[in-house]
Every structure is written in C-alpha cells, then in structure tokens.
C-alpha cells in the first residue's frame, strides 16, 4: 500500500516536471531553451550508455561512436539522398544499432578491460574513416546546414521535438529496465558465472543490451543534428565517450535517472562556468575528484540512499508502534 502511494507521488512529480518543461520556452529566453535542449540530448545519450555500463556491467568505453554514427547517418541521408525526414529519422538509429551489433559481436567475446580496449580500437577505426573520407563526410570540417524542416528548426520547435522523443525514449528505457530482460541483464552484471550456470545465454543478452543502447544513442545523435544542424568528427572521438562515462558516474550509475542529473550538471557547468573562464575542464576535474572522494555513489545515488534510509527509519518506527500496541 505504502509503495503504491510512493509511486503515485513520484508519478505526480514527473507530471509536474513535464508540464513545467513544456511551459518553459514560453517564459525563458531562447538561450536557456537551447541549453535545456542540449541537456536533453546529452541526457538521452548518457542514459543509453548507462543501460550497458550501470545495468549491464560492460566496459562500454566508446559509446560516443554510436551517437556520432546516428548523427552522421541522419545528416548524410538528409543531404545526399532525397528520402523524407521521417524515414531518415527511423533509419539512422537503426544504422547506429547495426554498427553497435557489429562492434558488440566482436567485443562480448572479451571481458572487462579487453572489452573496452577492443571497442576503443574499433570505434577509433570508424572515427578515422569519418575523419579522412573527405568526399563523403568533409573530414575535419564536418557537415553544416543540414536541411531540417522549418517546424523543427527554430529553437523552440527543436526543443519540443527533442523533448517529445526524450520522453518517449525514457519510457521505453524504463519498460526495458523493468522487463524480465532488464532484470536478467542486471543479474548478469552481478554474477555472470552463476547466470550462465542457470542457463542464461550471457553473451546474447549482452549483445542485445548493446544493440538497444546503441539504438538509443543513435536517436540522441539524430536529435543532436535536429538541434545543431551540423555534424563533425569530434562526435566520434573517444574524449566524448569518456565525458558521457563521467556523466553516468556524476549522476550515480546504479540508479535509473542518475545519468540525467549527471548530464545536466556537466552541460550546465560547461555553459555557465564557460562564460566566466575558459578553464571549465579544470573545474570539472576538481569536481570529479571531490566526487570520487566523497560521493562514490554519484549525486543521485547519494539522494536515493538518504531517501531509503529515512524510509527504513519510518518503517522501523511503524513496526515499533505496532509492537507496542
């Protein structure tokens, strides 16, 4: 009974947040709308990474590649082919997922650090090709002025477009997270040997997780293009991958919504500290060290822990009262 009450409360909170987010562009200056949209895209990317890192326990070191592949696929399809936008929108994440399957297929045969290293080298291969294939991708310059239809190209149009798909993806992710598949994945993270002993095909689950996560990363890539109307090779570079890894840690990677918090913190830091000083990575580094020392569970993990503690106390109190009576 208490649990369902709680869920109802959380649901109401989410609805209020959603309504606020829908109303924001009417009040906020355009710059803030844009920043919020950037946070949405980054949050979706971090969430997709956390599906494999936090819940799957895989060392997905080069997740940014799939984001970049989604973005490049979308931009190339729009500029080079005459396909309608909605078709490009569906196809691009599928391309990212296909690349994810290919890379994942090689990677899941290895474990921990070797998994990560193989992924970095395969990802760097894609980065190098995009960087050098000047005729197709314009190399270092990237592709600018991707033709996005008018209704989605204004800042507030892009904002609503991104918000809609963010909410859709988050709901899908939550369903996957709570599904038998998601539960199995978390079990594999905690004890792969035992899982395979009870007859779970560990590798197949891991590949599935990678494909799903890369699909969502591809969606994030597409949304990035909708917002920025350009792509460049830095999207595929490994520094970005590490950055989103950091976001998962910042937010708390054993929680569902943690990466959103991490993404918001990182983007806000980059934007607002970036106004005052060019040394924002220095501040991010210091913040990160503080976090590692004092909040190893991440910001969200910290609050969840506190929350659960207070709930435990309440339950204990209730039990005592019950015993007394």
């Amino acid at each position, binding site marked *: 009974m208490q649990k369902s009450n709680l869920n109802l409360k959380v649901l109401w909170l989410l609805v209020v947040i959603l309504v606020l987010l829908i109303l924001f562009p009417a009040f906020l200056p355009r710059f803030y709308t844009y920043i919020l949209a950037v946070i949405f895209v980054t949050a979706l990317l971090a969430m997709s990474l956390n599906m494999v890192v936090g819940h799957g326990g895989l060392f997905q070191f080069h997740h940014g590649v799939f984001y970049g592949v989604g973005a490049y696929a979308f931009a190339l399809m729009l500029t080079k082919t005459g396909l309608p936008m909605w078709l490009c929108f569906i196809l691009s994440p599928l391309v990212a997922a296909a690349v994810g399957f290919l890379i994942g297929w090689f990677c899941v045969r*290895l474990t921990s650090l*070797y998994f990560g*290293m193989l992924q970095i080298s395969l990802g760097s291969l894609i980065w190098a090709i995009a960087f*050098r294939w000047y005729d197709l991708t314009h190399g270092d310059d990237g592709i600018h002025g991707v033709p996005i239809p008018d209704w989605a190209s204004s800042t507030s149009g892009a904002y609503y477009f991104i918000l809609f798909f963010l909410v859709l993806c988050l709901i899908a992710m939550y369903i996957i997270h709570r599904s038998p598949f998601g539960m199995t994945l978390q079990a594999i993270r905690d004890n792969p040997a035992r899982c395979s002993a009870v007859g779970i095909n560990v590798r197949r689950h891991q590949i599935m997780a990678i494909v799903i996560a890369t699909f969502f990363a591809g969606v994030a890539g597409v949304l990035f293009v909708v917002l920025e109307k350009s792509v460049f090779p830095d999207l595929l570079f490994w520094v970005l991958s590490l950055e989103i890894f950091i976001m998962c840690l910042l937010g708390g990677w054993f929680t569902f919504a943690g990466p959103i918090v991490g993404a918001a913190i990182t983007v806000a830091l980059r934007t607002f500290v970036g106004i005052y000083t060019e040394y924002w990575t220095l501040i991010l*580094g210091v913040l990160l060290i503080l976090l590692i020392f004092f909040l190893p569970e991440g910001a969200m993990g910290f609050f969840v822990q506190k929350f659960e503690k207070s709930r435990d106390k309440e339950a204990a109190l209730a039990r005592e009262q019950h015993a007394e009576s």
Partner: protein
Amino acid sequence: MVSDLGALGSQFFVGLSRAMILFVVCSGLSFVLGVLRVPNIAHGSLYMIGAFSAYSITKLVAGPAGFWLALILAPLVVALVSLVAERALFCHLYQREHLMLLLFTFALSLILGDLVKIVWGAEYKSIMAPDVFNGSVSLLGASIPRYNFFLLVVGPLVAVALWLFTNKTKMGKIARAAAVDREMVGAVGINVSWVFAFAFVLGCFLAGLGGALVAPTVSITLGMDHNLIIEAFLIVTIGGLGNMWGAMVGSLIFGLTQAFGVLFWPQFAIVFPYMAVVIVLIWRPRGMLKSVW
C-alpha cells in the same frame, strides 16, 4: 604503387623511430598498469607536460646544452608532478573499485590539461634539435635523419635499462612481485603504498622522457595528449597488459603500420594501425605476449 625500394626503406625507418618514441611512453604506461593495475589516462597529459617543459628549458638555456638538459630535466619535472599527485590524492584510493581509479586518472588529465594551458598558453611551440642532429645518416640504402637515428638508439637503451631495473635490482623485483601478488608483498613487511608510488612515478618519468624526445620532431600543442593516450592504450593492450616487451612489440606494430600506410594509401594512413589492433585483438584477445594480469 611503390616504385622504388628506397622509399620503402626510409619509410621503414620513419616508422621505426616513431615506434621508439611510442615505446618509451608505452613502457611507462605498461609498467604502471602492471604494478598498480590502473590504466592511467593522465599518462598522455604527463607526456604533454614533458614536451612543454622541454620547450621551456631550451628557452632558458640556449644552445645544444639546453636540449640535453631538457632531456634530463623535463622527465624529472614530470616525475615531480606525478609524485605530488600520487601522494596527495591517488594513494588514498587504492582500496577503491577499479573504475574509480580510472576516473580519477581522467580527472587528473582534465586538470593537468588545463594547467598546461594556464602555464604555457594555447599557441603552438616548437624546439630545434641541436646541430649535431642536422643532416642524415645512410643506412641499408635509405637515408634517415640523424635525429631519427638517435631515437633508434635511445629506444632499445630504455628497454635494456628497464629490463635491468626490473630483473636485476631489488626495487624492480619488489615492483614485479607487487604486480603478481600485492598482498603477499605486504605480508612480508614491504610498504606496498611506497612501491606503488615509486612505480607510478617511474612510469610517469618515462612519459615525460617520451615527451622530451618527441619535442623536436613535432609541433608541441595542447591536444597532443589526447592523440597519444589512445594509441598508447591500444599498444599496451595488443602487447599484453603490463608486459614491457609487449609494449615494444605493440609499438613496432603501430609505428610500422602507420608508416607503411602513408606509403600505400596516404588518405587513410591513420586507419591502418587501428585495423592492425583490431586484427591482433580478435586473433589474440589477451595480447601478443603474456600479460601480468
């Protein structure tokens, strides 16, 4: 496509000298990996600091003496930086989860990267090798710049020195023992924390040496850390984590495929080394040589 053998030969030596610089840096990374079990992302930043301090030292001391002084002092500067970072922060984290250590080194690389920007600014820097290295040496029908020849000598020297250190000295043996079984080393009364500090500083010293060695051959810029560290990680992985000779093999594979790639298909030259890494990892996932893990 390749018309004359001379181009092939000189390209071979270009790749070889590049491999030697990579080896000096990667042996340090591999050493830290072997003893501390931490992929040190800040290694690239320390390499960058090595190159920048070499620049500053040659500015302070003019003439060829400056270069030689830089070759000695720049790695020491880097070692000092790493010692401070290790004793002040890193040594408190050894009990933590692996990923936390990785993220700490990433945070360190962010901080060091910005510190370099604060101290040296964002402009390109370059230093000249002393006059001794002007001109070129003819070797096996190919002419190679003297500085590259110097690198071909330094690389193996570092390898031998490192081998002697880890196999013939007490400290090196303790470090190797700590790599295999750190609890046992602690149990026989050795202060493991200081062994780790020593290994970390030695590894970073090598990063600084690599930075000082590469300084005359490239333009010294911010961002040189990012390009290097990813290559260094891949080299160490394909060689076998923590294995010094593995770092040598990996560096040779990486340097040579890149050099020959330039010859065969210049546009996609940077693709070749990554391709080689993929092939090696699929063929031998644990690296070419035995890893200490």
